[in-house]
């Protein structure tokens, strides 16, 4: 049994929130650099250059890279050989309160109906999966609404096949256009049922999952190629870089169903992984 306590979780989540908002991760930085080299249009290059400069300013001047510092989503993978001295919600929500106050992050969480702000950016959204082993892994995603608002789920007719899935994804990306801060990333959930499909999309995006078989790998490549032919480009002003990467997670589903969820993420793709 490994003992993990309240402050281990809280302090690490605070640090993950800080890093994700002020220090653009190497993965996203490299994707932006590649996209800039790959673009022919001046406007597209200029916008990506601004994003790279923005990342430098964020780190050096300690200004959040984006004013939308998000609602915090945590994907928790809890090993069966871990013993906690607390629940999971308390240290995570305490971390959110501390980080958003101390680092001057925007508190963007409101009651859905009265629209009154909770004033500390809580509650965080926490999804827990129990796994083998003695590790506690948390993916911390402070997700902004610009991209989240453009996400969609649809219960497709199962006979539409892979091309039907690709058409739906393209349709979602077209509707998002310049609104979701392209160049974007896509998390795609296929199968399961209504709510599981959305979770698959979020998990695929947060964990940057690799294709689990050849069919998924081919589908990923087809989606990347077709989406990047839409000429949406950085900020929707045209270009080759509409989508920088696609992550797909699939699960068996009912014979009558083909649920597909598309979770859109902006070019910053803020995710920090904690392993305890």
């Amino acid at each position: 049994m490994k003992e993990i306590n309240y402050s281990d979780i809280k302090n690490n989540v605070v640090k993950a929130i800080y890093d994700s908002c002020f220090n653009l991760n190497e993965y996203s930085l490299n994707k932006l650099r590649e996209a800039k080299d790959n673009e022919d249009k001046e406007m597209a290059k200029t916008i990506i250059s601004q994003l790279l400069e923005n990342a430098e300013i964020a780190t050096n001047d300690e200004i959040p890279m984006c004013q939308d510092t998000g609602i915090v989503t945590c994907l928790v993978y809890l090993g069966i050989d871990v013993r906690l001295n607390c629940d999971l919600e308390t240290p995570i929500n305490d971390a959110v309160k501390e980080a958003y106050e101390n680092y001057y992050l925007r508190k963007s969480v409101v009651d859905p109906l009265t629209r009154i702000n909770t004033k500390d950016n809580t509650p965080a959204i926490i999804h827990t999966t129990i796994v083998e082993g003695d590790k506690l892994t948390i993916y911390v995603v402070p997700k902004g609404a610009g991209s989240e608002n453009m996400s969609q789920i649809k219960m497709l007719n199962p006979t539409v096949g892979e091309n039907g899935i690709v058409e739906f994804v393209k349709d979602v990306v077209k509707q998002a256009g310049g609104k979701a801060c392209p160049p974007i990333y896509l998390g795609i959930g296929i199968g399961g049922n209504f709510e599981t499909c959305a979770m698959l999309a979020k998990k695929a995006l947060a964990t940057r999952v690799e294709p689990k078989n050849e069919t998924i790998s081919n589908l990923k490549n087809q989606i990347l190629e077709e989406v990047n032919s839409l000429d949406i480009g950085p900020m929707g002003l045209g270009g080759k870089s509409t989508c920088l990467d696609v992550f797909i997670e699939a699960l068996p589903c009912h014979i009558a169903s083909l649920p597909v969820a598309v979770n859109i993420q902006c070019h910053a793709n803020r995710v920090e992984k904690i392993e305890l």
Partner: protein
Amino acid sequence: MIDVTKLHVGDVIYLDEIVYTARDAAHLRLSKMLENGEKLPVNFEGSFIYYAGPTPTKPGKIAGSIGPTTSARMDKFISLMPKLKIKGMIGKGPRNEDVVKACKENKLVYLIATGGAGALLSKKIISCEEIAFQDLGCESIKRLEVKNFPVIVAIDTEGNDIFKR
């Protein structure tokens, strides 16, 4: 101070202007105040509306991170804009036909800043003062003076739209 009728779609320009932040909640409140015949708390004449909700300003700094939010959510309030006598709006992403029409009829421009460049844009703010709707927190109205603030003309006063390709 810029003459917006001289701007053309696709122009990359650097603004030295007075800009007021207002997003979803502030637009809703302004439109209700006008409906009820109340006096608005701000004189917007000759300025720009910026769809933005910055992070809190750190002590000793001028402004927090301050990039644009998605403009399309404010399309429904477009009839309010000419009444404010502004020169234009700043945000990100495409607008609907009503906005294009309103820009043409009222000689307004719609400018876009780079979404997700809040730190870079923060460096172009030379003063920031919260002046109305303080209870809305990050959605309050702030008066900004901006210098060399980089934007692209997305809809010009002739009704040309950069997103129509």
